[in-house]
């Protein structure tokens, strides 16, 4: 949903939102922001998609616009280039602030039995499912899972051009490679799921 659409109507600020983000791993320095906009002008996504505006996202957190920000899902557009993180004069670490926002969205979604709709979340979910099963990410499986979940034939067609060439050049792994110590991987995923279900623990 577009940000403008998400903020339509009366805003009901959530006074706890700022602390909720700032108390999470990666969000600790949020309060240092003095709104200079270095993050925004450094952002390669903002450059082509002005709707994704890091400074505006920080303001929305400060103003408690949780409902609007979460509804827009705009923060899933971050590509993790870490340019804003590197350049921020106040060390706000916006890239990891985005991680905190994503973690909140995923956890609250799971508590309600839903999930973020953004393709970037679907991608992360399919990716982690592959890692949960094999301990390693199997690229071919990831792509098939993603396509099945997004149900968008245009994406598959668009990928044929590259995928076919890569296949012919032997760059497509046909069988997954698997970790021997899968009990470690299973334990890690179970612990994370259990903590999320309990809704507690320092994130």
């Amino acid at each position, binding site marked *: 949903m577009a940000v403008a659409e998400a903020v339509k109507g009366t805003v009901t600020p959530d006074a706890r939102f700022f602390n909720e983000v700032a108390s999470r*791993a990666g969000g600790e320095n949020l309060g240092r922001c003095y709104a200079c906009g270095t993050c925004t002008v450094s952002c*390669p996504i903002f450059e*082509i*998609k002005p709707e994704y505006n890091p400074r505006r996202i920080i303001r929305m957190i400060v103003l408690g616009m949780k409902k609007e920000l979460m509804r827009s899902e705009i923060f*899933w*557009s971050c*590509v*993790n*280039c*870490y*340019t804003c*993180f*590197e350049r921020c004069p106040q060390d706000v670490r916006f*890239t990891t602030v985005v*991680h905190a926002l*994503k*973690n909140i969205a*995923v*956890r609250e979604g799971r508590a309600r039995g839903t999930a973020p709709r*953004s*393709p*970037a*979340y*679907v*991608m*992360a979910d399919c*990716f*982690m499912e592959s*890692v949960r099963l094999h*301990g*390693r*990410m*199997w*690229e*071919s499986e990831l*792509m098939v899972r993603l396509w099945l979940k997004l149900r968008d034939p245009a*994406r598959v067609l*668009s*990928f044929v*051009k*590259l995928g076919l*060439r*890569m296949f012919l*050049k*032997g*760059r*497509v*792994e046909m069988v997954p*490679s698997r*970790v021997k*110590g899968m009990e*470690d*991987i299973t*334990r*890690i*995923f179970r*612990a*994370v799921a259990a*903590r999320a279900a309990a809704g507690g623990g320092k*994130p």
Partner: protein
Amino acid sequence: MKLAYYPGCSVHGSSREYEMSARKVLSRFGMELEEIEDWNCCGAVEAAGVDHELSVALPARNLTLPKVTEAGRIIMLCSACQAVHNKARSEMLADPSLKGRMDGLIGRKVNTDVEIRHLIHYLASDMDRNEIRKQVKKPLTHVKVVPYYGCVVNRPSRFINGDDPDNPTSLENILSDIGAQVLSFSHRNRCCGGTAMLTEEDVAITLGGKILAEAREAGAHCIATVCPLCQVALENASLKARDASGSSYDLPIVYFTQLMGLAFGFGPGELGLGRNVVSTRVLVEKVAGVPA
């Protein structure tokens, strides 16, 4: 000498030619990459979006493997794997309670003393440049190349002991050591859009297209990269991005190790240059001295 080595999922899958060429190059220095037994996926940027603790636990498990502790240093080819491991390591060093939770969760001690090193940093900073120059058999005199670092080989510098994040020099140094003409390239630290390739492809192609456009404008014969995700994303953009006149780009996107290998006298097949999607034939001919 054996170097403990973490390949990561992409190098193991879609980007074997990166490892092939790295092995050839290192063999000239009497060095061998030794894959760490039973490594797991680092979680890339995806784990961080799902759950912070998961994004630390996955790389942390790799830091409990016996070979890693024995070696004291892991070499990585993938920028993202390297950044993810360095981030987790730094976070555990800064927060002993996080480290303690990881020790407990994995059931073994996580070794945060291990150095996590990208191959470009190892070759450009930990080795003597003269050693590289000495191995050059066919200097790439006729090859014009733009150095492309991408994002996370040097960012965030708070976690990574690499180059200067804004003015890196390692690729330029290596490429000039092997005799290539290194062109100035303003997009060298800009994002290729690889992360968005499967989710917001228009964004990825626009970002990749900007890199290809500047490289062509500069008169480059190829783009040298250090990351498997950048390589694939730029090859995808090569197939789909269009310049102002509507034509696509045909600049080879090569790993810096493939260029080093050519200069060291290895054949294109040994370096996996036939596996690149954008043809590298003209480039290989330039190195061989055939006018193209």
